[in-house]
């Protein structure tokens, strides 16, 4: 997992699995509060990867907000070789489309393989309209 080269699909699966792990094991959400959505293309962009019902606002421990509208839309981008800024931009655009005309916030979860330290680093970015 640390040394192999992966195709984009496999990298995506690793990133999504880590996001679910983060929500369940770190944030203490129930699996039934997380929806892994089907990719549907709309206006040139795919819908976001997850919808999250954080009814007890547990994510406030890592976000800069004390409350937020629900659901939370989340997009995961994983990089197992070089970081591609255009994919981050694309993820932001997907979230922007999901939260347009609303007071919702989006979550961009970035997973980056750290070759030197043989691990994956994760970053959670809060996205507002």
């Amino acid at each position, binding site marked *: 997992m640390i040394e192999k080269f992966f195709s984009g699909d496999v990298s995506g699966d690793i990133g999504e699995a880590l996001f679910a792990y983060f929500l369940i094991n770190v944030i203490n959400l129930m699996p*039934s509060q997380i*929806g892994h*959505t089907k990719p549907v293309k*709309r*206006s040139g962009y795919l*819908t976001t990867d997850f*919808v999250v*019902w954080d009814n007890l606002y547990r994510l406030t421990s890592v976000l800069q907000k004390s409350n937020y509208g629900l*659901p939370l839309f989340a997009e995961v981008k994983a990089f197992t070789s070089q970081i591609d800024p255009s994919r981050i931009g694309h993820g932001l655009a997907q979230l922007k489309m999901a939260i347009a005309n609303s007071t919702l916030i989006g979550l961009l979860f970035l997973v980056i393989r750290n070759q030197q330290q043989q691990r994956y680093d994760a970053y959670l970015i809060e996205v507002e309209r």
Partner: protein
Amino acid sequence: MEKDPAFLIRAINEVKESIWLGDYAKAIETADSNLDVAKRFEFIEFENTANEVRQILRQFRKEAKQKNMKNRRFWVAEQVSKSIEEKKLDSQKNLFGSLLIYLYDLREAIAYLSEIKSQTTMETYADKTQQEDDSLQRTDRCRYSIKRFPERWEVRSILDKDVLQWNTEILRKELPDFVFSIEEAPKERRSTTFEIYSREMYAQVVGQDNQVEMSIYTPGTPDARTRVRKVIETILNTLGQ
């Protein structure tokens, strides 16, 4: 003899729709009743003609591949056409025969699918409440099937109404607690996609022609089933109006 093969085309479409919904009983009923009608005609002759044309097609395809022909498809079509003419094969009989063979094949596929579904698998012993939510419904305006997965509900429906006639403005009024996100699709496109969400539900709706597919996500609370079913019925009844 009725020369119009339209009834077979309609039957094939109806059977395919029923398979898509998982309504195998209806698919078998449609296939059998139409095959019974077809048996009144000279169906063996139709089948033989269609099989002969298939054989000719296969032979020229093989020849084109062996000779590494350029414009292979065009060459094959030309040779098949000439051959049909030389052998004086009736194209109407070929068409009927091809459709009949296709309907027979579908009938066989449904029997196979039904058999698989009736077998005992690991799923038989899985979460019973989840399976109890799987159902097939028929109303005056539509047929739909619901399948419940751990984190989502999948709905497939055949509406009486085509996607081009959907009125999402009425739906907005029927579901005032939901935010709508509707794709602005070109007028000529025969499909549409929209998403709706509220504090406790998110649904993706994709429609093409008269088919609707929905994926619904909601937190797994005790009232989830009631809430989901209410939204499904509202969406389908309103879009089918």
